[in-house]
């Protein structure tokens, strides 16, 4: 049997439909106004250099948990992914679940920030944000929710400042950076990180974009845009597509010294697993993570493979460890319709049980 049986007239039908969508789609593209992101009202609580700590406005009808949650996002990409649009917002879901939500926006580092280290980020900015919240709420410890690289930072922070973290939630967080299916890890094995940072100073966001696209080039550079043509006749879907597109390519440059340590200690030497990780004056030992831990990972994650996250279970010192496996990808875990229904409510319930 011939596996392909396409009649020319059927092919023409397909192409005519395609062309029709393309030509008419331009009107919708032209009608798209400025792409907005970050939909939930928020207030800047604390600022330092380019970093801003926000507190989101909770719906008046919801009874709030008295211990706030601080979202620690990655340095890569922008945190509005957690509050992308009206019906796609992890932040909104957490607020609805009764959480009092704070979020750190690291900003866009420029050359003045080239010497910021992981010590500056974790024991500096992050610690001071935690202190600000603790002081505001007169609490000894707060809840911390780390996302992706921000989850790795949160783990380091919780291990070195356990008295300030009541409960720790990690989402799509890499812990074991050298699982056999970790493509990024393979790519940096022979990279001279010192030479790269000494040469470039800050690492351009464009370089990271290129790297991430090349993880699945045919899908991300080609197929995705053909899919877009399919929705060009729907203004709402066009706006949603462009919003996501904006987020994907909105990649801040990376402060050189922080990037140097992150690539060498985490990717190349896997110190979070192998030991010997030093962040400023503190040695990071995950056995010191003794507070309750909720670890959420995505089964189809091509950036942080599930095994890279699941490794946490055997490394932390806590006896109260919970895992949630979400069927989806690295981005779907924040923005898919199913994620909205499943992820934030689960986090809320888990925290409430421990309050």
């Amino acid at each position, binding site marked *: 049997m*011939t596996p392909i049986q*396409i009649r020319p007239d059927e092919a*023409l039908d397909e*192409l005519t439909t395609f*062309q029709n969508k393309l030509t008419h789609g331009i009107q919708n593209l032209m009608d798209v106004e400025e792409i907005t992101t970050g939909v939930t009202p928020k207030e800047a609580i604390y600022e330092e250099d380019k970093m801003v700590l926000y507190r989101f406005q909770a719906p008046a009808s919801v009874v709030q948990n008295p211990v706030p949650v601080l979202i620690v996002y990655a340095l890569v990409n922008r945190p509005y992914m957690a509050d992308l649009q009206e019906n796609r917002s992890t932040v909104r879901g957490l607020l609805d679940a009764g959480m009092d939500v704070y979020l750190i926006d690291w900003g866009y580092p420029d050359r003045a920030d*080239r010497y*910021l280290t992981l010590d500056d980020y974790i024991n500096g900015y992050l610690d001071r944000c935690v202190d600000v919240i603790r002081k505001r709420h007169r609490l000894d410890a707060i809840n911390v929710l780390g996302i992706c690289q921000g989850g790795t930072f949160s783990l380091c922070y919780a291990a070195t400042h356990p008295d300030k973290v009541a409960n720790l939630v990690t989402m799509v967080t890499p812990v074991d950076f050298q699982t056999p299916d970790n493509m990024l890890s393979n*790519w940096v094995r022979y990279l001279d990180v010192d030479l790269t940072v000494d040469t*470039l100073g800050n690492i351009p966001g464009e370089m990271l974009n290129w790297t991430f696209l090349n993880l699945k080039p045919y899908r991300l550079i*080609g197929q995705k845009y053909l899919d877009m043509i399919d929705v060009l006749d729907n203004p709402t879907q066009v706006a949603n597509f462009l919003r996501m597109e904006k987020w994907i390519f909105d990649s801040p440059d990376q402060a050189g010294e922080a990037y140097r340590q992150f690539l060498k200690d985490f990717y190349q030497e896997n110190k979070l697993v192998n030991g010997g990780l030093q962040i400023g004056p503190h040695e990071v030992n995950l056995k010191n993570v003794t507070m309750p831990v909720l670890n959420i990972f995505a089964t189809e994650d091509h950036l942080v493979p599930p095994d890279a996250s699941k490794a946490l279970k055997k490394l932390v010192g806590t006896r109260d460890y919970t895992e949630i496996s979400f069927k989806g990808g690295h981005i779907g875990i924040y923005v898919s319709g199913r994620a909205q229904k499943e992820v934030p409510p689960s986090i809320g319930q888990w925290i409430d049980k421990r309050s």
Partner: protein
Amino acid sequence: MSDSETTADRWLEAQKRYWDAWTEMAQRGLDTAMSGSREPANPWADAMEQWWKAVSPSAPKPAQDVFSQLVNLGKNYFAMAEGLSKPTTSGDVSDMVQNWMRTLSDAFAKGGQGMNPLAAMGLAGKTGRGATAFWDLPFDTFSRTMSAGSPVPGDFLKAFEGDVPGDMRAQMDRFLSAPAIGYGREYQEQYQKFGRLVMEYEKAMGQYQAGFGALGQKSLETFQKRLETTAADSGPVNSVRQVYNIWVDACEEVYAEYAMSDDYAKRYGEMVNALMAVKQQGARLVDESLEAMNMPTRTEISGLQRRLHDFRNDFRKLSAEAESMRAELDGMAGVVSEVEALRQELDTLREAVKKLQEKPAPATQSDVTPAKPAATKARTKAAGSKTPAKPAATKTRAAAKPASKPAPGATGGTTRKTGTTRRKTQS
């Protein structure tokens, strides 16, 4: 009517006009396909191309970039559809598919361009490198920047892009390795080093790209297998889009396998490291030029940034220490007030003692006047037992000595002792 509205209207009008032409052209292509005629060669992809040429000049600027990318993708997609719909001499559908596969196979044979993801989708940059476009970009920028002050021609580096014959590369290497002499030897040496690093980078980039070449045939085989599996599971594939999706899945599978290999990691690492070496040497040359113009160099600015960062950290540490000391002091506020209260009590007692001392001594009593209330006890004791009291040696000594002396002298001694006691209390 605003300018933007006018532009939009023109754009839509152009599209409308073109739409009729497209439909007609597409119908011609279909007729050609049906009749088996050999002309025109690629009517559908050509139609797409013509459409874009006709309407793009009037397209609003912001939409042009997005759309040109979509159109490029569309052209490739159309070409795929064409390949799948072209007639064969036999008129057999399986021959049609085989023809198309052969075309793909030929494309892969041309140095792996078919596996270059961006090139395969019509998005390769001007250098044709596609997937490696990012790594070209900074280099091109640098090359433009440097061309003005470089002792080698601005297009010198272009000669090394793509395939450079081995003997030519060796000759250039010898040329660049020749010892520098004369007044500008240092300067010349730096440029020679730069030239050598560029050649190394071009070599590493060539090897990186060559790595993809071997994947073409493999991805074709995977594609065939996936088609067969799909056909066996759910019947023949009968839409262009379905074929495209299977093609993408096959390519991703083969690419992922290669990208996870040690071979890829080495080629990638060598390519990036070689580029960084070029850029670093380039930055050194730029710094030298800036210095010659009495302008701040990148190295100097980096040095200042580092110092500023260190100062800020020191400042933060000191601020934190000051804050903690202040908190400690605040905590000590209670102790301070307690000490103050004790001090006041002491002063009161001293006053009382002083008053006691100022009272004339009874004739029968000893002239001994203890300096402190504690001495009262001593006095009592001494009065009873005739033995000087122990508690404070100084006081005891003061009490014992004047026993045989007249009262006026005793007053002065008591005053000194009081003074001594105060100093001790204060310390």
